[in-house]
């Protein structure tokens, strides 16, 4: 079946020529820096005029500028390859962020996150499957929406599409719903977090659990605070680590109904689907734990991680094309929206309860 064009970053083989990716990376940098400049200018203006202006993080400015560029003047194809590197910057940023976590913290917070992730995945899969059936969506699209909203957005959908042999069109519908809802989360979640006076920890873990795509989850945390971004990245990384298990379960279930055939070992499948950058994050965190880096070096690595995220956030706005998302039809979006609201409320309760009992 023909697929509908979705503004998905293409996966390019590495290494790429700098001439191909240079213009797009430069555009990401310009937009990210512009976001930082706007944040600083507003803060300076407020200070010099003794005004209490709300602090809007550069993250939101970068996303909004990228979004405005994509949906007004558009983006020339010469920039596409460079914009597609936003996923690389996101993963590099998360690996470098490992320097700001000691392994003990990763074990403790990651362990708590994994427990919450397990509950979140089970409930999300059940919610989305129920809603998909109630709205009469086909089995494959329901499964893709359930996997996308329970585990990790676009990459989970792409991984599952191959495993359950779903149509390109179903995958496009699911990706469109997940991306649209991720864009809404950027605005809604921080507002709710401030309204409920959530701590950086609880907000970060909530973002990591409830926002589907990794870039949007980290950006949502960053819009709230720098510290919340750190926890959002950790919780989302724990969630991403589960991708293989969920996709394997679906692949086996689909194989049992003879629509697809499962070949190879389960362990090999799990390793293939496991997001390897998680190992890089753990490696850097281990080095930080044995004091391989001094305080100034840890600060430098933290700042390098922030620069990588700056490029990522510009890419989040630049790849969101409202016209392409609008072509996908209402039903998957309605199912996705209802499911996401339920999941957001459920995970909020889960995080607040765990913070209360664990006294974070």
């Amino acid at each position: 079946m023909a697929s509908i064009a979705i503004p998905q970053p293409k996966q390019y083989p590495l290494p790429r020529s700098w001439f191909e990716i240079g213009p797009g990376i430069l555009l990401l940098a310009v937009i990210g820096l512009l976001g930082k400049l706007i944040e600083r200018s507003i803060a300076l203006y407020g200070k010099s005029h003794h005004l209490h202006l709300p602090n809007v993080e550069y993250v939101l400015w970068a996303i909004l500028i990228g979004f405005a560029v994509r949906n007004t003047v558009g983006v020339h194809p010469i920039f596409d390859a460079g914009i597609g590197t936003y996923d690389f910057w996101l993963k590099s940023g998360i690996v470098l962020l490992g320097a700001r976590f000691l392994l003990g913290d990763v074990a403790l917070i990651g362990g708590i996150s994994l427990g919450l992730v397990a509950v979140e995945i089970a409930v999300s899969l059940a919610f989305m499957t129920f809603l998909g059936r109630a709205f009469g969506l086909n089995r494959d699209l329901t499964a893709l929406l359930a996997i996308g909203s329970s585990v990790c957005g676009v990459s989970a959908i792409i991984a599952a599409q191959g495993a359950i042999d779903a149509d390109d069109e179903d995958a496009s519908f699911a990706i469109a719903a997940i991306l649209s809802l991720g864009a809404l989360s950027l605005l809604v979640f921080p507002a709710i977090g401030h309204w409920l006076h959530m701590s950086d920890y609880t907000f970060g873990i909530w973002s990591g659990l409830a926002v589907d795509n990794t870039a949007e989850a980290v950006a949502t945390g960053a819009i709230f605070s720098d510290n919340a971004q750190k926890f959002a990245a950790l919780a989302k990384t724990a969630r991403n680590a589960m991708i293989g298990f969920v996709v394997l379960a679906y692949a086996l279930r689909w194989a049992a109904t003879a629509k697809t055939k499962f070949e190879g070992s389960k362990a090999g499948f799990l390793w293939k689907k496991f997001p390897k950058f998680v190992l890089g994050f753990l490696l850097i965190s281990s080095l930080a734990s044995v004091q391989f880096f001094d305080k100034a070096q840890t600060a430098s690595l933290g700042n390098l991680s922030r620069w990588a995220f700056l490029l990522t956030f510009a890419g989040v706005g630049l790849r969101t094309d409202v016209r392409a998302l609008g072509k996908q039809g209402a039903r998957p979006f309605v199912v996705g929206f209802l499911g996401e609201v339920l999941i957001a409320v459920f995970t909020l309760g889960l995080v607040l309860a765990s913070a209360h009992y664990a006294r974070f």
Partner: protein
Amino acid sequence: MTTFNTFRNLFGLSTDAAAVWTALALAVLVRWGWLKHIPW
């Protein structure tokens, strides 16, 4: 070369691999003082 291939196979030639290697290279540059005082 064998060690390199083991690592290359471990991470695969993917975006994940590029991200991990880049981050590790930056960490080494920072650790041995070739990259200092990165501002934000």
